[in-house]
């Protein structure tokens, strides 16, 4: 029986891209985008499942403007053949719930056995789309998944989930949605020929109107008031005294700050 696995991916600014608050209403983001860290792990994990169970169909999907296409090209370069691009720029600013609704509208009819999302995306760090999507699709979900073993014969799985200081092993029946944790797979770097092929791949866009999504579906209930600079730390105080006076001075400072107990 074919196992259908859907991977949700998003293009986000690189970890090292400059992000600067220019004014309360404006954020400067350097034009250096990548497929989000955990999403690449999800792609690799899907490819591994296909290796273990050749009768697997993998679909990658990204919602958003033209940058979403870049994430999908990455998926193609890594080895995924079926990719879908849905929605446009307006989705990106509409919030997690809007994105989850659009993804649910596209993914629902596919009736996948497994949906994979990143634990959190590298831009908003929300970690919301996966669990929301699970709710909308009525699927069981597990977050922060470190390993996953599938048994397509009897539609069962076992997974390891990371929690504070513990790893929990859980067992259940497909379908399942997971939030991917670091460690589930090590993404490979695609070879140049595959990257070239991916650049030429034709990726068509499906507008949200075609998915039966209306304006009220993309309201988030939240409004951004402003962007703010990260809080700044005061000037460092270098304790210049000779050793061991500097150490004693440090202990006094810590006492004065009330952080010792």
């Amino acid at each position, binding site marked *: 029986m074919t196992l259908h696995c859907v991977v949700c991916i998003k293009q986000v600014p690189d*970890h090292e891209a400059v992000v600067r608050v220019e004014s309360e209403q404006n954020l400067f983001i350097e034009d250096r985008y990548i497929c989000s860290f955990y999403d690449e792990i999800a792609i690799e994990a899907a490819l591994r499942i296909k290796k273990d169970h050749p009768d697997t169909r993998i679909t990658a999907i990204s919602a958003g403007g033209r940058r979403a296409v870049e994430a999908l090209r990455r998926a193609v370069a890594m080895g995924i053949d079926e990719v879908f691009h849905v929605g446009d720029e307006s989705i990106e600013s509409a919030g997690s719930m809007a994105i989850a609704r659009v993804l649910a509208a596209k993914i629902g009819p596919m009736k996948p056995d497994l949906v994979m999302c990143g634990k959190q995306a*590298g831009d908003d760090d929300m970690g919301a789309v996966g669990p929301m999507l699970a709710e909308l699709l009525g699927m069981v979900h597990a977050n922060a998944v470190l390993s996953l073993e599938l048994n397509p014969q009897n539609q069962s799985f076992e997974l390891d989930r990371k929690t504070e200081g513990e790893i*929990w092993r859980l067992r259940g029946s497909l379908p399942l949605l997971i939030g991917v944790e670091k460690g589930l797979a090590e993404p490979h770097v695609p070879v140049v020929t595959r990257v070239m092929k991916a650049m030429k791949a034709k990726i068509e866009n499906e507008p949200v109107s075609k998915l039966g999504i209306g304006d009220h579906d993309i309201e988030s209930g939240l409004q951004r008031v402003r962007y703010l600079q990260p809080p700044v730390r005061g000037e460092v105080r270098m304790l210049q005294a000779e050793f061991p006076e500097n150490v004693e001075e440090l202990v006094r400072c810590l006492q004065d700050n009330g952080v010792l107990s």
Partner: protein
Amino acid sequence: MQAGQIWVLVDARRDGLTRSTEKLLQAAGSLAGVKDMRLTGLLMSQDEKLIESVSKYVDHLLWARHPDLTTYEATRWLHAIKQLFQSRGRPEIVLSSAHSIGLELMPRLAAGLQGAYAGSVVSMGWKGEALLFKRPIFGGRAYEELEVVRPPVVLTVRNALVSGGKPRSAVVAEIDEAPVDIPDGLGLEIVSREQTSRGKLELLEAERVVAGGRGMGAEENFKLIEDLAACLGAGVGASRAVVDAGWRSYDEQIGKSGKTISPALYVACGISGAIHHVLGMNTSKIIVAINKDPEAPIFKNADYGLVGDVSKIVPAITEALAKCLQKE
């Protein structure tokens, strides 16, 4: 927002309430106090000892009772909480600290409530009738302030601070035992639980953290870090360089691809201060850096800096602290 209800999901370990939940209950109390909202502590654990520790913070302790809820499992808890929304009325605000349970459940609850959701909230406050809150974005390179324009709203809170709130006077909580119905076979089966940080203080909960980097020189020198941590009652953290080298385990890694923590005190020993590391700790209240290189970038992110060799300075701090703690 009209006067209504605030619910806080209580996270508890074997040894009682977690520090982050305790802080969140206090913060929620301030929020509720300003608007005369009713504060509900939502307790899913069957441990009666927790009733006392939670009820001192809340007006109403809602105790979901079913043997299958004792151990957390997402689908069963979600099912129970949805029943409580039905029977007790929908809250306007639902809060949880950003632990593994909250992160897994809260966005899903928001979707179920057709409400708004935000994660990693670091401060909350009222502006007129609207709830405003702040959260870091792009790994802390910027922050955003958001306003709830259409409740209900569900938030996971990382470091509960409330601006403009007033602390609550003592309250006597109403204890509301709520039997819930859980169908047989719902959710996942828990096969096993394995501890990954046996006996160690959980970093996300630690009030103080001592972390070591490549500058510690060797795996065995982390004994110095552990001694200082033991003296401070602190957790042990590590840079990625030493995790990659196999000196320390991944669950101690602080930074972009490890944990993000906000303890009251962070001591960085032999850590250069790469941006990836700093992103995981720069919201700590007081940061101390010890490095032999006076130009190390870590000093730009520290409150106190000591230039010198960690093998000499770290044990000296442990000794000085031990002396001064003895005196007290």
